[in-house]
Every structure is written in C-alpha cells, then in structure tokens.
C-alpha cells in the first residue's frame, strides 16, 4: 500500500549510479518536486517492505543541502544485509520509497568545529563526509578540507570520480585515499594505523575530525586521535551505526513485565534489553528506525522506571509526560507502554 502516514513521505528514485561492484548511489526527489531541507551529515530513514515484513533503515545523505531539488544516498552490499542488499537488487529509477524527514546530529552545525577539517571515512561511511565536503565547497565556506578515505582497493572506492573532480576543482580540498591494495603512487598503501595517522596529520592543533564508517574503523580513528593528543572535543563520529547485541543480552538476567494496553500485549522486558527490542518482539507496531536515539521514530510513553541514554527530538513537554525513546531505554521496573 502506498504510504499515507505523516511520518513517512514517498521519495521517488530518479537516478541509480552503480558506484562499485557492490555499491550504488540513489538520487531521490519529492513527488511534488518540493525542496529538501537538511544539514550536511544527516541521514534519511527508509521504510522497506522486504518479503512482507516492514524494515526501517537509516542511510546518510551524500548530497549537498545547497542543491535542494534532490537528495542522494549510497548503499553498499553487506554480508547478510537484509535491507541494503534488497535495495541494491530492486531499487531503480521510477520507484518510490517511503522516507522520514532527514535527521541526525552528525553535522557541522550541531558540533564544535574549526576551519581545518579532517573528514575521515571508510567504505559506505563516505556519504556524510561527502555531503559535508560538497556543502562546504559549494557554499564557498572558508575552510580547508582534508578528505581521508579508506577502502580495500581502487575498485572499492565509492564516488571515485566525484572525489577526483573535487580534488581538481578546489584548492582547499585535499584527497588522500588509503587502499589496502594499490599500485597507484598517488594513494597511500596499507590501513590506517599510528604511523600513517602521524604522517597524515603531523600537526593536529585546531583541527576537527568527522569520521564515519564501519564500527571497528571508527574505533580505530578514535583511538589514534586520542593517542596523538587530539582535542577530543573536536572529534565527532557518526553514532547510528549501532551494534546489535540485543539478542545475547536477552538470555541473561532479570526481566520485568510490561503491558501495551492499546494493543492488548503483555510481554517481558529483559534487563539490558532495549525497550524497542522488547516491543518489537511482542508485536507492538513501534517504528524502530535509527535504533540509536537519534531519529525519534520509536518514541513511546512509559509509566514505570526507565533508564534512558537519549532524549533527542523529544520536547520538554513530552519528556514531562513520560515519553522516552524506546531504543535508548532499559526497564528497571514493570512498565505500562503507550505509543
């Protein structure tokens, strides 16, 4: 059924660009040709029906907000990746997908920054960094960008031509590609480690890092930055790439009883299990989108004791009424939950 909800708006795919053997960029416009409003670094959450089950996935935008007629996301095939692989196999120009409005705080505006920017990414994590670079350059901001991108080989570089074009066009954009396998002398060979980090960033004073990529990559960047004495107030990483270890946690420990009277559901919430996982397991129609306390899709009203790690998007009034983000909440007593 075509979406009628106010949370989701259908976006029509107008172009598909196959970037590498396992990734593609999809450009979208609004049905009414309306303009997009967002900040570079934000993401879109799509609702995707995969074999009869609705799934929600967030993808960072790679486009620049300064060209608001369309937006683009880049999707990479992942082993066992239910939604990403489905979209790569099926999404073509002319098809629409329901999406939530752009969201996220991994942006230049929401974080302390300086004019010396290190945009460090790996794999499909390039997208928010690309969006930031494009916006900064397109709007002629007085910044210097060092764009450091890691990939397995030249064939795995996403948006390779766009990166080269930016490198050629702008004096304040410098590109470094770190490739595990390469014969190209313009590239650095290897993986990002301490000596390479030191070589790339000999002087880290007054610099800001934005990093996005697979979780181990971001952990490595964070560790290297700390070790090199980087001012961590200026270190920012994308956080919605959450680790899903909820299944292991459910097995252990105490659990509480919860009820969702609107849906006639009664269920257990294990200690350490997110309320979102418990609601989903019970069949309560909650929307779990970013699953990391950013997008606000999973908000619900709770009576009971809750420990919560994020209140993003909730108004003071909602918080006072007992609203929480279920993805970022754990139960500490029996609960009554309303959507």
């Amino acid at each position, binding site marked *: 059924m*075509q979406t009628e909800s106010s949370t989701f708006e259908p976006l029509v795919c107008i172009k598909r660009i196959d970037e590498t053997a396992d990734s593609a960029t999809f450009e979208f416009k609004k049905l009414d040709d309306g303009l997009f409003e967002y900040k570079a670094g934000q993401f879109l959450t799509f609702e*995707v*029906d995969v*074999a*009869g*089950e609705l799934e929600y996935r967030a993808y960072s935008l790679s486009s620049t907000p300064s060209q608001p007629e369309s937006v683009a996301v880049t999707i990479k095939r992942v082993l066992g990746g239910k939604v990403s692989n*489905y979209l790569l196999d*099926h999404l073509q120009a*002319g098809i*629409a997908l329901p999406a939530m409005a752009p969201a996220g705080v991994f942006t230049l505006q929401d974080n302390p920054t300086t004019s010396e920017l290190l945009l460090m990414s790996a794999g499909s994590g390039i997208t928010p960094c690309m969006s930031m670079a494009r916006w900064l350059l397109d709007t002629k901001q007085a910044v210097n960008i060092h764009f450091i991108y890691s990939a397995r080989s030249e064939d795995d570089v996403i948006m390779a031509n766009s990166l080269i074009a930016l490198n050629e066009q702008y004096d304040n954009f410098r590109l470094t590609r770190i490739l595990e396998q390469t014969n190209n002398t313009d590239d650095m060979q290897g993986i990002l480690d301490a000596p390479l980090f030191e070589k790339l960033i000999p002087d880290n004073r007054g610099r800001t890092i934005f990093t996005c990529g697979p979780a181990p990559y971001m952990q490595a960047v964070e560790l290297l930055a700390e070790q090199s004495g980087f001012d961590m107030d200026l270190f920012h990483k994308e956080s919605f790439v959450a680790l899903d270890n909820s299944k292991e946690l459910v097995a252990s420990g105490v659990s509480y009883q919860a009820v969702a009277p609107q849906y006639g559901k009664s269920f257990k919430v294990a200690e350490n299990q997110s309320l979102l996982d418990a609601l989903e397991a019970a069949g309560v129609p909650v929307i779990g989108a970013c699953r990391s306390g950013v997008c606000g899709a999973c908000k619900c009203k709770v009576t009971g004791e809750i420990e919560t790690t994020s209140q993003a998007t909730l108004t003071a009034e909602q918080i006072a009424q007992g609203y929480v983000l279920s993805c970022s909440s754990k139960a500490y007593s029996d609960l009554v939950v309303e959507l």
Partner: protein
Amino acid sequence: MFCIQCEQTIRTPAGDGCSYSQGMCGKTEEVSDLQDVLIYALQGTSFYAEKAREFDIINAEIDAFVPKAFFATLTNVNFEADRIVGYARLAQSYRDQLKQKYEVACLLAGQQPVEPSAAAKFELANDHLGLLSQASSVAVNRGKELVNEDIMGLRLLCLYGLKGAAAYMEHAYILGQTDEQVSAEFHQIFAWLATDSDDLAELLETSMAIGTLNYKIMEMLDLGETTKFGHPQPSQVNVKSVAGKAILVSGHDLCDLEMILKQTEGTGINVYTNGEMLPAHGYPELKKYTHLVANYGSAWQNQQKEFASFPGPIVMTSNCLIDPNVGDYADRIFTRSIVGWPGVAHIEGNDFSEVIKCAQAMEGFKYSEIPHEITVGFGRNALMNAAPAVIEQVKAGNIRHFFLVGGCDGDKEERSYYTDLTKAIPQDCLILTLACGKFKFNKLNFGEINGIPRLLDVGQCNDSYSAIQLALALAEEFECGVNDLPLSLVLSWFEQKAIVVLLTLLSLGVKNIRVGPSKPAFLTDNLLNVLNQQFGLTLITDVESDLETMLAK
C-alpha cells in the same frame, strides 16, 4: 433480528448471536429480518421446484435464481433492504408459477397435489411493515423453545452449509455450469430444511449430503473456470502498486474481471486484484492481459483502510463487502450481481464504462513501489504436474509432511495463530494454502525444497477441490487412504462458504481437521463432541502443541 452465521457473531454469557439493532457485520436489524423472510420464501419456491420435477417440469431460470438469491444472504454480501424484498417477491412469483404448473400436471395425471409445507404456503405481506412483522415467525431459529440446542445447531449447520453451496452454485452458473441433478438435490434439501426437522440423525445425515453435494458443485466450478480461462499455471504476481490510473477488482467472479480487462485494454488504466481475486493471475486467459498489473491489499477485513487508500474505483463482484462509508469510498465502489450496499452504485449488465470513467477522473498511483512478487497458480493441473517431483522428494525423505492451511481471514487477533503456525512449520514440510486466510502469511518467504516452493497457493476457497485432488493422487501413489498421508489440515473459518467446504471434507471422510479461530457459535459442545468422535475434528489450540501433534502423525 437473530443471526449467528459468521465467526464474528456476538457471543455473550446471555447467549450467542447478533440479536440487537445491528449485526457485527453492519447488517441492520431490518435487513437481517428481511433476509430471514427471503430465505423462507425461497424454501417455498424450492418446495415446488422439487415437486414439479416429478412431472419433468424444470425451469432453468428458477433453478439459477434460488441459489443466487440465497447467496445474497451470505455474510458481507447484501445490505440493501429493497433488493432483498425484490428477491423475496420474485421468489414468490416463481413459486406461484411452479405451483400452478405442478397442480395442472397433477390434475392431468389424475393425482392429488401434496399438501404444501408451511414455507410453501407462506405469503409475503404486502407492505414493508408487514414483512418485518413476519420475520419473527420465519427467523432461522424459529421454534427454539421447542427443541434442544443441539437440534437447533444442526438445523443451522445445514442451512448455513447449504448457503455456502448456493454461493458456489451461483459462481458455477456464471461460468455456464449447471447440473440438473445438483439443482434437484439442492431444492430437495432446501425445502426439507424449512420443515424444521427435530431428528438428530437425519439432520446429521443431511449435513453430510450437503457436503457431498458441494463436492459436485466445486467440481462444476473448477470445470467452468478451467474451461473458460485455462488451467492455472504457477505465476509470479506483483503485490505492490505501479504508477498510473487504476481499478481494483475484488470478490470471486473471474468473468467480471475478464470483462473489465477487455474494456480497459488500451485505456492506460491498470487493473489490480484484491482478496479472493488474487488467483486470477494464474489463469492463462486472464494473465495474458498486461494491464492486469498486480494484487493490491490483503484480506476483506482490511478493506476499509486499503480501499480508502486505493486511488481509483473498486468493483465488488461478490463477498466480502463491509461498510464503505467508514473509509469514505462509497462514491467509488461499485457492486455487482447479488452484492449491495445502500447508496452504492450497482452495475447491472456488462458495461463497466461508469467504472472506467471514474478511474480516469481519479489520480491513480503517483509512483511505483519496489515490486514484490509472490507465486500463485498451483491449481489442480499444476499440482498434478508437480506431483511426481513431490512424490520423489517424499520418497527421498526431503519432504516430511504436508500442511493445508487455509480458509477465511478475519480481524480477530487470535488469527495470528495462522501466521505463527506457518512460520513454525519445519523447513522440510510443504504448505498448501487457499482462500483469503492465506493473506496472513502469503507474502512471507518460505523458500523451497529442491525446486519445489514450500508454499503452494492453490487458489480461491472453492479450489479446495484442487487440494482434494492432490491428496487423492498422493494417497493413490502411496497406496493408502487420505487419512494415512502425512497431511494435516488446519482451517480458518469466517463465513458460510468455509462451513460448506468443511462439510465437504468431512463427507469425503477426511479426519483430524483443525478449525479456528473459534468454534462456530451455532455448534453446541455436544455437536462438537459428535464431530470430534466421528471425524477427529478439533479446534486449534496453540501452535507449539498443535504442531507437535500433527507432526507426530
């Protein structure tokens, strides 16, 4: 008002059945009462249709009319008082015609005409109030104070079962299939039911006779559909929308769908199937139309949301129709044949230009969604073609068990049992499905067993005929009875077509069927015990224990 024919009927400690000012289906007390009057009048017609046959007086028009008008009283079919009254008056005029011919024939033969039954003598009141005041004396549970609940339950089982059979007779008739023997037997049973038998054994026997009769009717229907549209072939069907103007066709009538496809050819309008029309995509003579683009929505109980979101007109060719005012689409839904709702446009004849005009005036789907294809079309022939491969996999030990999970859908939460069950069925088992109950799980990915899809969609509810044929073929191959096969039937019921399919399966001797989500309210615990003792019929319990029992077989 008293109506207890469907699964959602009101159940209270004070007694079951819809007996207030409106039924759970939205049928008003007025319409319900008039439907009771109609049924009784039709039974009078059947009385003389049976008697006249003794002199070879057979009127094909009347033989077609009686089951058709009876079908109008099935759940979620006709909510229009005037049309119900119209059918009742026509029934009585047909009765008078037959009565006259019968009496003349008797006179010529020198015989005394038989004493007419009360239903045959029944005279409709001249005005509306008069008709309504007749309702209590002809109510389906008339005389309940005189007989025990078991007798009443059996009378209703027979009446509702025969109503399901009547619906299939009408479907078969539209496809050009009639059978004199079937009509004769139908009239005989229908007329007899009006005599309010209190003989338990005789009523039980009649319920089985109705099942047997319905087997013949489903066979006719199968013949009609496959003759006209070819044998269903396994076919991929998109269940997502496609950009462009659109018409939605719901119900069971493939002929209406064909006419709509012909009349929309070249107009740029896309045609979608809904609910029980899904199997249409498997028939060669229907799937050849490229503008039959997709199946839209799910089962009937979701129509108030799904039809509301459909950006084009909707044609309701048979059951199930529910209040179109709730979703605010009454001005773009069209009814056909016996279907009716007050204020909704009804199309007589074969001209759908009004529907096409409506589609053209509407926006249609603004965009296409990612196509999601499911497979349908495992009708009798396709199943028979697949049978050798299936048998080979059974012998090789790759297929352990067969499940037939099908029947009606509905909106009770307990119906999630059917989703949970099919998800829990082990990977080395095949699932056959039919009727709209399949929408609880037919979009899930069940995978395959060495090239054989694990979920085989057999078709509409009446295509249980095809499933029976497969079971018989398997039993022959394995030299055993159907009940000895590693086959379990788990049915979901909502209305009277499902009741008659159940009676057919029982009359064929199929045992250990599970039925849910609840027991028919008209069946008493005693009757359920009888069915359990004779046929091993049980109600569903929980997925885990049911599955364990079924797989242990």
